[in-house]
């Protein structure tokens, strides 16, 4: 029943990270605060994907699929971002 213990450990880690993200938000990190919050969220998502969704012991193809969506979303946001943040006000 190690599998079950693993699930409990994972959930505990997720709750700990939830508290951590709240603690980090209480501290004024300036522009970094969003980065920190998203980084913690990324770790939490990775935990869920790897343990709850069994990707850790899944074939490589599943790793690719699990990463692919996020990669593509990053691509979409990055390229739109590249437009919006580099528009000269008047062009």
């Amino acid at each position, binding site marked *: 029943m190690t599998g079950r213990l693993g699930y409990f450990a994972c959930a505990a880690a997720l709750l700990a990270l939830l508290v951590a993200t709240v603690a980090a938000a209480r501290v004024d990190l300036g522009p970094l605060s969003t980065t920190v919050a998203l980084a913690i969220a990324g770790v939490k998502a990775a935990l869920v994907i790897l343990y709850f969704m069994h990707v850790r012991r899944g074939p490589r193809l599943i790793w690719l699929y699990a990463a692919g969506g996020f990669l593509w979303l990053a691509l979409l946001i990055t390229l739109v971002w590249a437009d919006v943040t580099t528009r*000269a*006000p*008047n*062009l």
Partner: protein
Amino acid sequence: MAGAVDGLFWFLAALSAALSVLIFGLLIAFAIRYRRRAPGERAGVARIPLGLELAWTFIPLGIVLAIFGWGAELFIRQLTPPPGAMTVYALGRQWMWEVQHLGGRREINELHVPTGRPVRLIMTSEDVIHSFFVPAFRVKRDVLPGRYTTLWFDAVRAGEYHLFCAEYCGTKHSAMIGRIVALPPEAFGTWLARDEGDAGQPLATAGERLFGALSCTTCHGRDDTRGPSLNGLFGRAVRLRDGSVTTADEGYLRESILQPAAKVSAGFRDEMPPYQGRLSELQVLQLIAYIQTLGAAAPP
């Protein structure tokens, strides 16, 4: 500019023609030479050397990169108005073009310009997206609601040219057309000075009056008081509260009038009321024209 655009166009046309002839020629030649002569005929063994595969991968890559550079260089030139360009404002609206000259003359679906002097348009839309397109000058730029876009051209020869709306904008999209009338400089001067019943006050004068009527002077005075002084502001670099630096061009002024909270100058509080919904696009243009004149009078 039109000549430079055509240069690239005809280069690409020639390149396309050459490549098409090559490919079609090979297709036809191979098809005839290797046509099936007997029903059961088999194909021959032909090895394509890897070098050939790589050649038709990397040679086209080089060619397209060169075209990219050419097109990009051209694009930058098309977006950068030469110094000394004459500024004209254009408003797009379903389904007409309204043009406002600095001196106060207003035109509908027509734009008079002098030959030999670059003209820079500052454009915005009051409703949907339009696009200002003059095929003869090879210029086109979308006209968006809620922000300014610009475009410049240089009418070399006097004459009349088509003006089209190129971005679909509703029922009478294809009727949102007009003409550009390019006049020799003297004739243009005469035209500009004439009043055909459309001339209002010069934009800056109207702007000054509006500036007073809206009590802008309460905060924006000769010196930085409650709000930053606007003297000599236009075209200058402005430091913002969040530490970034922007240029005080038309787009910045427009945004700062309508949505002052978006970019607050360093050292000031965000307390100016937003004028979005309270000023027409024309009134904003008048204020901007007035603020530009403040530059000249400013002490160094």
